[in-house]
């Protein structure tokens, strides 16, 4: 019974998927891989790493009625400025539709290298300090603050955490200063002890003197 239900739901979901015909645009992915030499997948813009087709969470076959309605709304956003919440896309994918509109986005499939200029270098969805457009070019994840060009992330985080780093340096310097002084104190004490040992006349010398 359960298996039968599962099969019928899967078939139904498959039909829905076919009817809705999800739109993946691999041109962008191919360009990014060539440009950055980094391996990227559909998760750059989509909710699922394998793209919108399928039955897994984040793919078209798994959508509820409300989500299908959201999808239809997003698909109608041909012009820029519409706030969309396409369940097949992640925050970056949705922001592309909002900023450019579907029409422009479809045009850019022929020129994926122009996408960064089209969206500009101000938006930074994950807040890691690297604009989305640069993350797109570098093949790093635009919605993961832990992912970005390593050197740029390092420099940006150094600036952001300047206070913590200064405090760390001060704490370490204070610790080293204390240890160094302790070391000098021990050295001094040992020298005094050594000198005191040298000054003590050997046993029997006093009688001769």
């Amino acid at each position: 019974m359960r298996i039968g239900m599962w099969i019928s739901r899967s078939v139904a979901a498959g039909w829905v998927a076919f009817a809705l015909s999800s739109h993946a645009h691999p041109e962008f992915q191919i360009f990014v891989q060539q440009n950055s030499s980094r391996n990227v997948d559909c998760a750059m813009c989509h909710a699922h790493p394998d793209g919108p087709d399928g039955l897994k969470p984040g793919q078209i076959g798994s959508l509820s009625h409300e989500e299908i309605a959201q999808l239809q709304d997003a698909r109608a956003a041909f012009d820029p400025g519409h706030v969309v919440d396409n369940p097949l896309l992640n925050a970056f994918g949705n922001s592309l539709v909002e900023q450019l509109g579907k029409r422009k986005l479809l045009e850019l499939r022929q020129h994926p290298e122009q996408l960064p200029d089209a969206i500009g270098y101000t938006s930074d969805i994950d807040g890691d300090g690297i604009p989305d457009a640069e993350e797109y070019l570098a093949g790093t994840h635009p919605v993961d603050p832990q992912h970005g060009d390593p050197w740029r992330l390092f420099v940006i985080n150094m600036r952001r955490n300047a206070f913590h780093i200064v405090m760390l340096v001060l704490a370490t310097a204070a610790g080293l200063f204390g240890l160094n002084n302790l070391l000098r104190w021990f050295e001094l004490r040992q020298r005094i002890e050594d000198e005191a040992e040298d000054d003590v006349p050997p046993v029997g010398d006093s009688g001769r003197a």
Partner: protein
Amino acid sequence: MAIIPLRSGGWQGLREALADRMPIEKISFKTLIQKKEVPVHRAAWAYYLGGLVLFCFLIQLVTGVLLLFYYQPTVSDAHASVEYITKYVSGGALIRNLHTWAASAMIFFVLCHLLTTFAMKAFEKPREITWISGVLLLLITFSFGFTGYLLPWHQIAVNATKVGLQSIEEAGRYLPGQLSEMPGRVRELIQGEAAVGQATLSRFYAIHVVFLPLAVFGLIGLHLLTVQLHGMSQGVDKVTGKTERFFPFFVLKDFSLWGIVFLIAAVVALCLPFEAFFSYPLFAPYDALGSTPDGIKPEWYFFFIYYPLELLPFWVVMLGQMVVLGVLFAAPWIFKGTSRRTLTTIAAAAAAYLIIITLFGQHIYEFFKGDM
């Protein structure tokens, strides 16, 4: 009757040999701490490397315990819990990064420690137990890396673990008779089920957080005890005659170095996420039915064996590995009469191999496979 004295002589000999190597009658605060002297010479910096390994282990211990508060060792929740730690737990990203970076630092320092002690001939009688416990600690450190790699349950973790376990089973092809089944059984024992899954994760988790730390505690105890009992090895041929007291002078300098290393580790952990060096699809949750992303590789500290495995026949690499392991364990006897100069040359060659294969392994692989 003639056999008995021989036996008792053998037993007596063993007792004497052990007494030489573990002079437990010397155990006192005075001999272990107050009276211990550390030689001072141009290679004396190498004496600090063991302490740095210990310090990295302590960082691992503290950060690992903190991660345990949130980590869920189940295939359904492991990745999500790691993501939760990184994104939502206060200071979670810092702790996780510190754990990851300190793991790499620990392996780096342990390799440096191994090579320098080898070059300084610090395995000489009566320090054989120190050396062998050190080699065991090296293997445990690598086991920490291997088992810990699986725990986040992302694509690279699971797929690299599969490759690692597969190579254990492959060794069976080169063994005769019933022995050929042994590696497969070892794999099953580690894996716990037909494929890498929940049982594997549970076993790796238990090994990573319970078995290996307990083994380390025991071995570090033995290692440090023998180091303190015998003192530091002279390390150089031309003895300067200068020494400094272990306590407080050497210990305080050691602490200063720990402070500097901690500062560097903390800044790197704060500013540089470890995952930024890899392609992001490798860190997506593992999907048994999904596509395997390109670029699955073990951690950098396994490159010394990974790239040879990719380029050479399996049996050659396995044989080489067994020989190296055997030589490492038997070094105190094999290199008994070898000069420090020769040992330094061998250690330098080993270091050069490790550096080249780690930094340029991919280029070498592409060159020989004709992909360049």
